[in-house]
């Protein structure tokens, strides 16, 4: 299957977003192109998590925000190739909820596990750390036969513009 390709800057940014919103789930949109060998991420756009009622284990991107992101993507000649979110204190694996709520066939769902750190406090000590980041491709054609398949990720060195 096609890999998901992104550069180091985007990879770090996705993971850092999860650390910033910990203990809540972060979420965002991956913009780029579907190429022969891989889906290439050109930009990762942060989005707001509207599940404020249960942000520690649920995320949702407001459709309105997505329209805005899509419009921006169109203007830049980019497509939506996937989404990313984090799992606070939970493995970087898709859950039943993740699969049930995934509808963007052919897109990648990238999940980062962020673990809380027990430390004795003090300003400047990290309170959490992003561990694994995994990508999953939503495969299938209809709701009834969809699955999230582990997708290889290629993280390339950032090329300066």
């Amino acid at each position, binding site marked *: 299957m096609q890999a998901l390709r992104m550069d180091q800057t985007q990879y770090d940014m996705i993971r850092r977003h999860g650390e910033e919103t910990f203990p809540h789930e972060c979420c965002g949109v991956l913009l780029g192109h579907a190429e022969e060998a891989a889906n290439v991420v050109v930009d990762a756009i942060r989005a707001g998590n509207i599940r404020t009622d249960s942000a520690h284990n649920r995320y949702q991107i407001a*459709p309105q925000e997505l329209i805005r992101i899509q419009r921006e993507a169109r203007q830049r000649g980019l*497509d939506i190739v996937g989404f990313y979110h984090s799992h606070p204190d939970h493995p970087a694996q898709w*859950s039943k*909820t993740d699969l049930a*709520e995934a509808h963007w066939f052919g897109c990648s769902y990238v999940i980062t596990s962020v673990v809380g750190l027990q430390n004795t406090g003090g300003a400047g000590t990290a309170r959490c750390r992003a561990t694994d980041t995994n990508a999953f491709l939503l495969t299938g054609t209809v709701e009834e036969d969809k699955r999230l398949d582990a997708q290889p990720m290629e993280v390339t060195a950032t090329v300066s513009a």
Partner: protein
Amino acid sequence: MQIHIPTPLRQYTGKQATVHVSARTVAEALAGLTSQFPELRKHLYTEDGKLRAFVNIYRNDEDIRYIDGKENAPVNDSDSLSIIPSIAGGAPVAETTAANALTPEEMARYSRHLILPEVGEAGQLKLKNGRVLCIGAGGLGAPLTMYLAAAGLGTLGIVDFDVVEASNLHRQVIHGTGDIGRPKLDSAEDSLKAINPNVKIVKFETKLTSENALRIFKDFDIVADGTDNFPTRYLVNDACVLSGIPNVYASIYRFEGQASVFGAPDGPCYRCLYPEPPPPGLVPSCAEGGVLGILPGLLGMIQATETIKLILGEGEPLIGRLLLVDTLAMRFRELKLHKNADCPVCGSHPTVTKLIDYAEFCGIPAKSTVPASEINGVPQMEVGELKRRMDAGENVFVLDVREPFEFSIAQIGGHLIPLNDLPQRVRELDPNRETVVHCKVGGRSQRAAEFLAQRGFKKVHNLAGGIAAWSEKIDPSVPKY
């Protein structure tokens, strides 16, 4: 008009990201789209022709669910429609996924539990899956929550909206000196997380009321009542019975305490024991009556023990038993409690089927912001007024009805006759003289003033707020205690 097609559906529109249709309403536009590309239909609609729940349709920037007419909302050529499948997900919900294994860290932490036959790994897992709600993070709540956390309780909810004060520290060991001024919930959470980071702490920074109690209790299996007032005790009891969960109860007064488990299926509830609340003012709070600091420590531990026994299903819980603790004599006694078949809440024909106004039930008048000028016929005097009269040299006799040890801590020059001695010593007083009675906060002095008024004293006033108000508003050098 344009319809923007999301990436996953472009394979059905010949890879087009935008499709043009002519239409006058949203429904017409979508119908035009699906007639051009019939494969789209099953992705957008359910079998009975409704839009799939996860499919969001936007006319420009508005969700059609919120536009007048919804799918029949009008569109014109300059509008665009966007089809946006939902983007959502999340980690599995901790509450519904039962823990079925202990981590190596947990095995090490709870090893002394694991080697007890009555606990073992199975029992420790029961604790890990347990959900207990503690009402109050104060005298009883402090030891209760700390030991439940240490024992490995999975989910611990705490209800408290109070702030840590210096006078809490002699007994509420979950809070430290550095926590004065902080919300009790935050201070408690820090202590509990330091003891055991595995516990999930759910904070409810609110007053428990008839409006929110049932909703809050819904996610818990056991309630431990650490309340400090009667209306809330009755509220907690009734809400537990209505929710079908047990209420691990304890109460303290000076040197004595009581503990029991109410609300068990065949057991009595709090109202079986105390069908009616005491008249307001009869039972002083810790602030008024004082409390030996270690007492709630002991009773809170008994509550923690009973809670753990209920979760493990081991031993004999205090159902139908009222444990009486006298710490001065260090004697423990027990009374049998029977479920009252006619109990209005838990009896066979309950009359209380929903939560009521408990302040009213306990005879506490609704708080008004205007201080009463008269209570039970006794005129109330503000501390400012007393100060004015004293400064003006008026012939006011100040009667202090507190205890001698209180007088030695702080006094404002009143004549001391402790409340209980008043009937014998009333002859020391002049019934025709302007008299202002005070105590610490105004409760005892009100009773004294009513007593004097009945004895024919015509010019008796109660000092509203007592010496505490005097210290607060007139002379801060008068010690607060």
